[in-house]
């Protein structure tokens, strides 16, 4: 098939093996979904094609063996392999088409929006409770009794966390509450999972509607306690806040 083709094939396989088997065993990691592996492999393929077609010579060296193989110029045992490929390729396309269109009992791929937009009435709200040590401590107390069973020590690892899919949010992760304004948390705590819009898949959140148990003031205090405990700061537009 030509030596020039061997390196790209080895590279692609190595990247696939790395993504499929090495990434999941890295510390604090998990298996990658196939959509992401496919995306990275497409990028790899694009990179290989770009690099190998930079000059006429490299393009011919790269595509030459493929053309010769497909046109039957290679001869010898490769001719039989060519017939095999030409026969198998339509079958592969057919199998792929069947696989993507046939009805299946597998649930569809999930593209849940973790942070959907809040309703208009919650935007622009600011925390009316003074940020005093007492209020923060009070909020942490409420957090300990109401939230920590699931959200744990602000890390999403409460004793009940393993019972939920998706798991409770990890507030210490810089991509969660640190990206949001306090008013967003107020909405999520107050209205709970059922208050999520469709793209947030309300049926996938077990978060209770805390408005049934906590006053607005207490919710604001919980928010202060949450940020303080997680070592994060809410998103603001004023540096002094």
């Amino acid at each position, binding site marked *: 098939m030509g030596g020039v083709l061997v390196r790209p094939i080895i590279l692609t396989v190595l990247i696939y093996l790395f993504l499929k088997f090495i990434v999941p065993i890295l510390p604090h990691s998990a298996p990658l979904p196939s959509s992401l592996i496919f*995306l990275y492999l497409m*990028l790899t393929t694009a990179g290989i094609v770009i*690099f190998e077609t930079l*000059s*006429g*010579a490299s393009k011919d060296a790269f595509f030459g063996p493929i053309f010769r193989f497909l046109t039957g110029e290679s001869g010898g045992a490769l001719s039989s392999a060519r017939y095999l490929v030409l026969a198998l390729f339509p079958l592969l396309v057919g199998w792929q088409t069947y696989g993507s269109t046939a009805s299946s009992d597998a649930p569809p791929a999930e593209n849940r929006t973790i942070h959907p937009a809040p309703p208009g009435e919650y935007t*622009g709200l600011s925390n009316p409770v003074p940020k005093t040590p007492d209020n923060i401590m009070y909020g942490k107390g409420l957090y300990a009794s109401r939230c920590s069973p699931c959200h744990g020590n602000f890390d999403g690892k409460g004793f009940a966390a393993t019972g939920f899919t998706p798991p409770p949010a990890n507030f210490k992760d810089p991509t969660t509450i640190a990206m949001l304004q306090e008013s967003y948390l107020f909405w999520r705590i107050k209205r709970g999972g059922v208050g999520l819009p469709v793209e947030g898949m309300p049926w996938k959140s077990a978060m209770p509607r805390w408005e049934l148990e906590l006053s607005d003031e207490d919710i604001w205090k919980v928010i202060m306690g949450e940020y303080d405990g997680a070592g994060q700061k*809410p998103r603001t537009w004023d*540096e002094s806040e």
Partner: protein
Amino acid sequence: MMHQGPMITNQGRELAGRAVFLTGCVALLGLVGAVDMALAQESVAAQAPTAYRDLPLIGSRNLVWIIAQLHLLLAGFVLGVPIFAWLCEIVGWKSGDKRYDKLAKEFTKLLTSSYATTALFGGILLFLLIGFYPKLMAYLTDIFFPSFLVYCALFLVETATLYLYWYGWDAMSEGNGKKFHIFLGLLLNVFAFFIMIVPNSWATFQASPVVLAEGTDFERAWAATWNPTWWPVNIHRLIANVVLGGYICGAYAGIRYLSAKSQEERYHYDWMGYVGNFIGVFGLLPLPFAGYWLMREIYQYNQQMGITLMGGFLSWLFILQAMLIGVLFLGSNYYFWLGITHRIPGSEAQYRKPIMAMLIILLLCLAVWMTPHSLVASLAEAQQMGGTHHPLLGVFGVMSAKMTVSNLMVLVTFMSFIMYWRAGKQDTAGWAKVAKAVMGAVLALAGIAVIILGVWGYFVPAIIRINYFSTSQVGIVIFVMLTITPLTALLLKSAKTTTEMVWGKMPPRAGYALVLNAIMVILLMTLMGYARSSSRVHWHVYGVMRDSSQYAFSPALGYAAALMALNTFLFCMLVAFIFWVATMGDKAKAAAASAKGSVEPGTIPAMAGGSQALDEPAPDAAQQNRPV
């Protein structure tokens, strides 16, 4: 029952026949009268003013969507091209190089032929808006009437200036005439800029309205015009128009190059393609920063709108955007690299390794940029990850990572251009070694600083990242450009040319890369235009006038993507038609010249099978040619 069967069957057939007949009549009537009925559906209710009208089959919103998108794309081209046509003319005038003047004129020819179509689509859009959304248009007219008048006046002077600029090109080609012509070009751009920002105020008002309850008409119009997202959109569109114009001119040159039958044509369109790509890249470098500023302003204006765009149901569009921009960056760099390996004979071996390094950095950056925060995963995969957010790679899904990689990609693309600029030249200045060491150090330190700020951005409050870290990253990249560009220019002043550039030797895939870049830009504009418009969700004017039509819902992303693709296709067809008409005369002249035997016999256009010859090694320096 058995005996009644045939009778029932016959009656059934008769009934069915009548039903079919009646249905046919109704359908016919429906077809004949549908438009009238739809257009007049509420006019009979004289008591209440008509708020909406609809169109059968296609629907009013879809029609307005298509026409508005085509108008905006045409307008982007028409307003972007004069900027660099004028700059090319100045370069030609100052340097005395007639190539630039010819190029500027060719750009302007494309502009002139597109101008009327743009205005035509603007007129159609206006009629459709008045017809389909009378209540909204009455409201907007009430606020913006003074600026409507300004817009009309601007259109008059812009048209007059364009006529003078185009038709006076040859008459004003020398001496003071040329100076006046260049002044006309300046006026053309000034009027074009105002023509862009006035309607921008209407569109941005819908997203971030400022409504004065009291005041004169002028005061209310001015307050509404100067709304929070007006200037961010103005700057973003100004740059995007240059990018669009550059890449479309590049695509035009690419197609002309592919269909060229003579070496002379190949030289010219190869060079024009290079200039088009350069202009596109030149605009592309600051575009992410302008986009970031716009999104920041939107988020600050309204949290709901900001999250809808970047975290909510529209956030998937930003992953598509990353893919399209990624292809654009790859396509532009690929074109530069092809230029090095094909226009500068013998340079391939020297630059293969640096190109590979840049390609790997670009691909890694792209991988980060394309990684969503919430991943598409099956139920089993989501369970393994503990949700749709990957515990390790999920950090790539937020702005700190995206800003970092976009800055790195801009740096790599800039260095691609610098490499192309320096290729085939040998430094002779005594201080060249020091200068190269300084440039290398600046580049390396800048790259490291951008990455450090990006990682640090995860550990500081969002406002510190947004106000200081992201802006510092942009500042660092700009500093690199402002340092390396003049240093390179100084070095090249005294450099010895070892290998002259050979034009007209690019392989056909270079032409296709130019076309691909143009399509990516058009798709990007249709995508982000939809995002900007959809972020208002069910409001005509955000928080002020609610959309109460049957189309108040946000279309599904797949549906929207289909319309974006359709709009891109229609725009490409439209531009192809306009350019075909505009270049008819040239082709007739070329045919006449061919008949006289001036075209090399047996020359085959690249796209008609003559491509292989263009991939052969370039001739040596003795056979070099310059574009004419």
